[in-house]
């Protein structure tokens, strides 16, 4: 038997725990009030263009992304703007947000709400990128990088492959899996649109082979679409990392500090492809996404189609409530997600899952001294030395940390996962990355 493709360097295999993989996507009822944070993309927060008392429809533009790396925001609900004020975000800090009281569900007239699948791609390359920009599409894998920026290939570079990330290597999460199964056709048209925007002939959809149904389903569907290939991959974390996925699917290595376009690749998530389909074919902005609510103690692990701005409490209620012995509620998966400081915070464009951990599982054991076993170095998919970088960050020796390529860290957490001394390696790597990033920016 031929062994399956995967990336070569490092990696770990945490327990998969995909409890919600067979739960079909359900539409969540509308919330009473939607809180839409303005900072929902990786770059500059959007600027509000509505004011208190304004009536808004579903899909109406409410905040503009004016900087180069920024994205538009659309009202996910219809109703009245109550206020534009600070709201507590998932970290507990106050950030600006638009509060909309929900009245009915009136959609903007320009949006095609019919269920028919539009297969004909009529827009040109420029129009597609423009539409994606207008609709505020960002990468739904979690990093929320504005998609239109990704599609603007810099001069002198040529994209050769579009790689679609259907890996979903984070344990527990199943939202991408369900999208591939239930919205496969739409997603493939989205891939076709992205291919047209990038002017590439070949697209590879990478899927780990713990999702055989999705691989089968998409392989069948993709027969009708020329240039799209489905690639089954061996299960290994963090295969969903951009650079790891490129290595696994087309066997190219992105040089340190460079973007995937350097090796002729552009990577996009399956959720993003679906959002692109909605935006280009249906003129529907990014106002909802699929969110997994899961955990060992959750009574009904589910996948919900949720409007942006819905409070996390409502998702948990729909999954039959918060279990008694909950220790942490995590935004994202167990490897890269962050614990929420309050469950009243809203779902944003970047929330792929809500993971509920039992208190005995969630507690972090006390760190012990480093025993120099070098396991962290073995599993680092970027070939870094996490123990050294964490130490340098802790001691605030940032110039050395920069030389040791701390900025290459993808924050996958494999080092911390594997560390037998339970050292907080990732925590200090994140701190170091922030500080070094700040240093680099001030130097410019």
């Amino acid at each position: 038997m031929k062994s399956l493709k995967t990336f070569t360097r490092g990696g770990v295999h945490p327990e998969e725990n995909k409890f919600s993989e067979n739960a079909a996507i359900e539409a969540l009822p509308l919330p009473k009030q939607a809180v839409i944070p303005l900072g929902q993309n990786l770059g500059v927060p959007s600027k509000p263009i509505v004011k208190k008392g304004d009536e808004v429809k579903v899909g109406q533009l409410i905040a503009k992304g004016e900087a180069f790396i920024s994205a538009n925001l659309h009202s996910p609900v219809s109703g009245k703007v109550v206020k534009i004020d600070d709201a507590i975000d998932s970290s507990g800090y106050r950030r600006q947000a638009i509060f909309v009281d929900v009245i009915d569900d009136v959609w903007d007239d320009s949006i095609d709400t019919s269920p028919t699948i539009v297969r004909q791609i009529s827009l040109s390359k420029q129009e597609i990128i423009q539409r994606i920009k207008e609709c505020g599409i960002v990468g739904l894998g979690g990093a929320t990088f504005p998609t239109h920026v990704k599609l603007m290939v810099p001069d002198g570079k040529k994209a050769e492959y579009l790689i679609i990330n259907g890996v979903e290597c984070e344990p527990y999460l199943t939202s991408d899996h369900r999208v591939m199964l239930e919205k496969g056709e739409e997603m493939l048209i989205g891939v076709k649109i992205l291919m047209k925007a990038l002017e590439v002939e070949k697209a590879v959809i990478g899927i780990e082979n713990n999702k055989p149904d999705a691989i089968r389903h998409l392989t069948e569907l993709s027969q009708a679409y020329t240039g799209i290939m489905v690639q089954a991959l061996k299960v290994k974390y963090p295969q969903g990392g951009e650079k790891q996925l490129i290595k696994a699917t087309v066997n190219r290595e992105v040089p340190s500090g460079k973007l995937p376009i350097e090796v002729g690749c552009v990577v996009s998530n399956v959720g993003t492809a679906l959002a692109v389909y909605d935006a280009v074919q249906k003129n529907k902005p990014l106002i909802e996404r699929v969110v997994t609510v899961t955990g060992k103690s959750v009574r009904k692990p589910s996948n919900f189609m949720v409007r942006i701005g819905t409070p996390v409490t409502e998702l948990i209620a729909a999954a039959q409530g918060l279990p008694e012995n909950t220790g942490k509620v995590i935004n994202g998966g167990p490897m890269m997600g962050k614990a929420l400081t309050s469950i009243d915070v809203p779902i944003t464009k970047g929330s792929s899952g809500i993971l509920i951990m039992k208190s005995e599982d969630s507690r972090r054991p006390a760190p012990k001294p480093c025993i120099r076993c070098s396991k962290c170095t073995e599993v680092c998919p970027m070939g870094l030395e996490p123990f050294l970088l964490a130490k340098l960050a802790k001691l605030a020796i940032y110039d050395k940390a920069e030389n040791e390529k701390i900025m290459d860290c993808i924050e996958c957490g494999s080092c911390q996962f594997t560390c037998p001394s339970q050292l907080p390696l990732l925590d200090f790597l994140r701190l170091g990355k922030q500080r070094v990033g700040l240093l680099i920016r001030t130097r410019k």
Partner: protein
Amino acid sequence: MNEILLFSLLTLALLGGALSVILYFVAQKFKVIEDPRIDLVDDVLPKANCGGCGYPGCRNFAEVSVKSADQKKNLEGLNCPVGGNDVMKQVAAILGLEVEEKEPMIAVIRCNGSKANSPARIQYDGPASCAFAHSLYAGEGGCQFGCLGLGDCVVSCDFDAIHMNPETGLPVVNDKCVACGACVKACPRGIIELRNKNKKDRRIFVSCVNKEKGGPAKKNCSVACIGCSKCFQVCPYEAITMADNLAYIDYEKCKLCRKCVEVCPTDAIHELNFPPRKPKPEPASEIKTEAGVTAETASRPPKKSAKETNETQE
């Protein structure tokens, strides 16, 4: 035998003589003339090498002092906070200068969000580093400006002058503090400030750096400054400024009259080491304080002596 002895002695003597001549000329050629005063100044400095003066170490400070004395004929901007006025006088004497007396300073913790005043809503179990916790989340009590209680300031202190109080979860400064400013730099939230030590260690300061509006600030912490401006209005010396819903007392202008302490509705203004006040027949605010605030918060001398306040000078 004698010949061998004589020969080797002679060779060595000649060789030694020749080399010493070479060494003499080399030494003349590459002579480094160092001002002898640098050594003298260095000798009187405390040798803590804490960097509190703004230079990497005591030796460096001595060099800069001598240079400044030669070029500018004064010691402006140079101060050894560890040695204080005594040491600076000695330094000035060596350099034949006069030095202005500087008020001694001390680090002040401007947060009173203790475990009782700002109860924890969530539990943090990550690494004990304020810098990291600050980048991760707002804080266990929910205040995004307040002390995280993980002790970066304690680690930064070279003088054993700052410790965590396990009961309150807040750091406490003792009188070993030399105002080197290491903790000020270490605190990611800018809570620690160097303020005048004043006579008998008496100090008045706003023990809060929360810039939120009154409502949200008070929600997270019972002793937050709510920006009501009462102290600003009552201050006869214009020492108090209001900015971003927060009062700030200028220690240069403050005459320690304690009027602001009395009017503060949330007990955010602290007075330290004052004698107890004469009891007044005005118990309304007292009752509120007794109920809502625990021992370590209280800086009101009528109730508690100054020794029990959160910055006890041991």
